[in-house]
C-alpha cells in the first residue's frame, strides 16, 4: 500500500507559499486542523486566500492567521465571531466573499468531483446572485455556481491510516470530507495514525486516494465556542 505518512507538520506543509489558495476544514472551531494552522503561523506565509466555512475566533483557528495579517481573502459562509475580522473588513485590508453554506459545501464537493459548475436555488433573487447566470428548471429559478479548488487542503480527522484513509468523529466531519477531495495537495492531520489494515474498510469516510500527506497531530486543544450544558 502506498505510504502517505510524513514525519511531522513541517514536512506536511512543505511547498506552501505566499499567495496560495488554501482550504481549511471545520465548522466553527469544531474539526479544524489545529496543527496545520499553527505551522502556517510559524511559516508566516502571506497573501493567502482561505476557503473555510468560518474564520475562527479572535485568538483561535483562522483568527490567528488574521491577527498576523496573513490572509488576503476569505471565502466563507459565516464570520460573525471575530472582531479582528470585522476590523480588517471595514478598513478594506481583507477581501471577503460570502457564500450560502450549502453552496460553499457543494462548490468544494464539485471541485473535487470534476464538476465545473452546477445550479442551486440558494441565493436566487438576493445579492448573492448578482452577476451570476440564472436559469429556470421546472418552473423554479436557479443560480449557476462554480467549483472551488485549492493549492493545499488542510483537513482534520479522528483516525487515519498510513494509506491516507480517514475516519471523522461526530460533527467534526462537517467540511473536511469535501475539502479532502479538492486540494491539489491534501494534508490530513489525525488524532491517531495507525498502520494500513487496522481500520475497517467499511468504515472509511475519506478514501486514501484523496490524501497526499498524513501525520498525527502533536496535540489538540479542541476549544469549545458555546459550552452549553444541562444540570441533570
Amino acid at each position, binding site marked *: 500500500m502506498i505510504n502517505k505518512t510524513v514525519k511531522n507538520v513541517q514536512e506536511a506543509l512543505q511547498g506552501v507559499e505566499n499567495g496560495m489558495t488554501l482550504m481549511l476544514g471545520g*465548522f*466553527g*472551531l*469544531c*474539526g479544524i486542523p489545529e496543527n496545520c494552522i499553527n505551522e502556517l503561523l510559524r511559516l508566516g506565509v502571506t497573501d493567502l486566500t482561505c476557503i473555510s*466555512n468560518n474564520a475562527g475566533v479572535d485568538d483561535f483557528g483562522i483568527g490567528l492567521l488574521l491577527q498576523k495579517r496573513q490572509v488576503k481573502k476569505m471565502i*466563507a*459562509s*459565516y*464570520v*460573525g*465571531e471575530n472582531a479582528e475580522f*470585522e476590523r480588517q*473588513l471595514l478598513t478594506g485590508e481583507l477581501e*471577503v466573499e*460570502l457564500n*450560502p*453554506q*450549502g*453552496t460553499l*459545501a*457543494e462548490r*468544494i*464537493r464539485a471541485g473535487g468531483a470534476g464538476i465545473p459548475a452546477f445550479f*442551486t*436555488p*440558494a*441565493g*436566487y*433573487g*438576493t*445579492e*448573492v446572485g448578482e452577476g451570476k447566470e440564472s436559469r429556470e428548471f421546472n418552473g423554479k429559478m436557479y443560480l449557476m455556481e462554480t467549483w472551488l479548488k485549492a493549492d493545499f487542503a488542510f483537513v482534520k480527522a*479522528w483516525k487515519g491510516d498510513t494509506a491516507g484513509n480517514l475516519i471523522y*468523529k*461526530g*460533527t*467534526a*466531519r*462537517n*467540511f*473536511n*470530507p*469535501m475539502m479532502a477531495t479538492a486540494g491539489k495537495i491534501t494534508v490530513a492531520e489525525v488524532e491517531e495514525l495507525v498502520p494500513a489494515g487496522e481500520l475497517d474498510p467499511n468504515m472509511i469516510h475519506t478514501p486514501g486516494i484523496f490524501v497526499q500527506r498524513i501525520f498525527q497531530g502533536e496535540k489538540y486543544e*479542541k*476549544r*469549545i*465556542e*458555546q*459550552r*452549553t*450544558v*444541562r*444540570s*441533570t
Partner: protein
Amino acid sequence: MSLDKNQIAKRIAQEVKNGMYVNLGIGIPTLVANYIPHGIEVVLQSENGLLGMGPFPTEDQVDADLINAGKQTITTLPGSSIFSSADSFGMIRGEHVDLTILGAMEVSEKGDIANWKIPGKMVKGMGGAMDLVASAKNIIVAMQHTARDGSSKLLKECTLPITGLKCVKKIVTDLCVMEVTDKGFKLLERAPGVSVEDIQKATEGTLIVEGDIPEVQL
C-alpha cells in the same frame, strides 16, 4: 397580552406533526424543541451535519466534536446519524426536510424574507439561511411584529437585503398567527386580548381578515 418568546415557540410547536424532519434556526426557533407535545416523534436536523439532535449534554458528557449549527455542545439520540455538510445541504435542497422554522427581521406579503444582513452594520454572513429558505417545503417564521420604534416588520416589500423570495408559508409573531397567501397576510389567530385593529395597525403589508378571528390557544 402579546405573546412572549416562549409562547411564540409553544404556538409554533403545534405545527410540528408526528414523523417530521425539522430544522430549527437560532433564537426563538430553538425554543420550539422544548414544547413539542408528548407522543409526537420528530427528528431535528442540525445543518452542520447531524440528524437526531439530542438535548444539551451534562457536564461529563460534553464533547468538543459534537456541536449544533449554533456551535453549542449537544448530544446524539438512539437512531441519530452524522454526515458531511455537503450531504446535509443535499437533504435541505433535495426537500427531504419537512419543516424549517426560523427567525426574520422582515417578511413581505409575498412571503419574501430578510434575515441575514443589515447594511452599514457588521456583516456576519448568511450561513445556511439562504439554502434553507430556497428549498424548504414548509417554512414557519418566528418574529416580533414590530421593531423597537414601532415600525412594522410585516411589509409590502422587504427593505433589508433579501434572504429568499416567496418562501414563507406561516408567521407567528407576538401579536398573531398569519398565513402568506397570493393576496397577502391572512390573519388566522390573534394573541389573547390583542384586537384585529391592533394587528392591522402593526402590519404595513396587506392584511386579510375573514370572519371572526379566534385567540391563540396555548
